[in-house]
């Protein structure tokens, strides 16, 4: 009798497995092959960019070189500057404080957000500064920062850090608040210490929010980089913008502007790639097979 029961169990068991397999197939049909007629995302994006550049270029006959510019003039200016090596050194000058400031913002912002989100007392004590800090008119504070930190590398790092810290921190904080209570209870019911609940349940559950914060702050960090170069010691890509704008050389002004925007786009997709690497389950759960 016992044996019969076991055999039946095994039989039903395979049924269940088969259900799971067919469910998996159904799921892959949902996300997988884009119908043949649909264009890949990158082609649509490229076509869009080409079209905008083309329209811009066609406006060339109406262009006054002081009031505006057009793509081929920018490309021409780019080759001229790239050839002189000026562009590379300016880019390196800009990227160094950017990398340090942005990295510091992650190192400080993520743990701070985790703690504020997790502990009510910290939230009540520190949350107000983070919320207010997000709206802080940083440009107005730059003169003060230069008084404190001088005109060099440190003040640039500080400006980039302060601009990118708050979106990272706030997103992490909100992410912690959105962690399903039941997952924390799983930790509690297995007697996980607070530290383990924070690092092994809350942190991974919050990763998608953290990565969204990193994406949002890329844009702010890039803007902060230019602000820092405008208002402290004039250097890097910001310096090129200011000098060429003062000379009414609009085409040259646009070279660093375009580079900065491209940099932000590249960094944002890099963050997206990192997200898929550190939190692959997220895309899988959402049923996305591409960004």
């Amino acid at each position, binding site marked *: 009798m*016992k044996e019969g*029961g076991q055999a039946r*169990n095994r039989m*039903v068991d395979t*049924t*269940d*497995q088969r259900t799971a397999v067919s469910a998996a197939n159904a799921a892959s049909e949902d996300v997988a092959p884009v119908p043949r007629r649909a264009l890949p995302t990158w082609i649509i994006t490229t076509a869009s960019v080409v079209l905008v550049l083309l329209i811009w270029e066609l406006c060339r006959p109406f262009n006054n070189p002081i009031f505006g510019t057009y793509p081929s003039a920018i490309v021409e200016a780019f080759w001229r500057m790239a050839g002189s090596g000026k562009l590379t050194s300016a880019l390196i000058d800009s990227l160094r404080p950017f990398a340090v400031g942005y990295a510091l913002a992650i190192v400080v912002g993520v743990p701070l957000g985790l703690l504020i989100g997790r502990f009510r007392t910290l939230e009540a004590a520190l949350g107000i500064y983070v919320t207010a800090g997000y709206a802080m008119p940083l440009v107005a504070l730059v003169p003060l920062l230069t008084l404190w930190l001088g005109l060099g590398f440190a003040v640039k790092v500080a400006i980039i850090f302060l601009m990118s810290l708050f979106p990272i921190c706030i997103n992490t904080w909100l992410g912690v608040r959105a962690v399903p209570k039941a997952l924390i209870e799983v930790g509690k019911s*297995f007697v996980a210490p607070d530290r383990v609940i924070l690092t092994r349940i809350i942190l991974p559950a919050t990763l998608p929010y953290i990565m969204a914060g990193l994406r949002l702050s890329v844009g702010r960090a890039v803007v902060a980089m230019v602000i820092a170069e405008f208002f402290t010691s004039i250097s890097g890509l910001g310096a090129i913008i200011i000098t060429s704008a003062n000379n009414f050389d609009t085409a040259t002004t646009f070279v660093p502007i375009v580079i900065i925007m491209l940099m932000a786009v590249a960094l944002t997709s890099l963050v997206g790639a990192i997200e898929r690497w550190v939190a692959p389950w997220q895309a899988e*759960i959402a049923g996305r097979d591409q960004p």
Partner: protein
Amino acid sequence: MGEVALVNVSKQFTLRVERKVQTVQALDRVNFSVHDGEIVSMIGPSGCGKTTALRIAMGLETATGGKVTVDGNEVRGCGHDRGMVFQFAELLPWLTALQNVMFGLEMKGVSGGELRATAMRYLDLVGLGASGNHRPHQLSGGMKQRVGIARALAIDPKVLLMDEPFGALDAQTRETMQAELLDIHARTRKTILFVTHDLDEAVLIADRIVVLKNGRMQEIMSVPLPRPRPDLGVVRGTPEFAATRYRVWRALREGGEAPH
């Protein structure tokens, strides 16, 4: 040994409804015990307090009166002497099935080769030995709940606390899981407190049934069905099943005037 006792367990909530502060008596002196190796199902309509009682037994909530003991020791917070199976399995989505089972064991202090081997043994026990590397989203509802059961069993608790574990499953999977739970129980002899709102389920798996209504114990009754129950289809056809089911149905329908 594994005997869990609820001794006069009461729970009051205060609610604020449109500026008025209301006291809700979620549990009122609930008093019963689950003996070693026994399965007791706790049944009642939504909001009757059955999940609250289970959560208090687990230590996820505190009682406002009375106490819970496991083998005579009063429960204070969560402990490895009790294993919880959640309603929606609640696996950690970034871990594989095996890692989910290992998580509970690690918290108990198991490490090294023993950790992996033990987790694997319990995955095998629930019939998922081949799916250890799957992430939760790759598993069906029934398979997820099996991992949840393996995770709770792996820490070798004295008592297994199950909160409507099959409530979210389709009817067929649910029947399979009921049979498998009884099979696992036959092999491990664990003490089980099982919360359900399903009449058939309550009768099929339990030795005794606690009927809860409006936070009060309406009745506690024995199920006169012998063990083992290898074929629940056959059990369903017996007059004892029908009679017990009817008694529980009557208890749920009658009595239990509104609280407060």
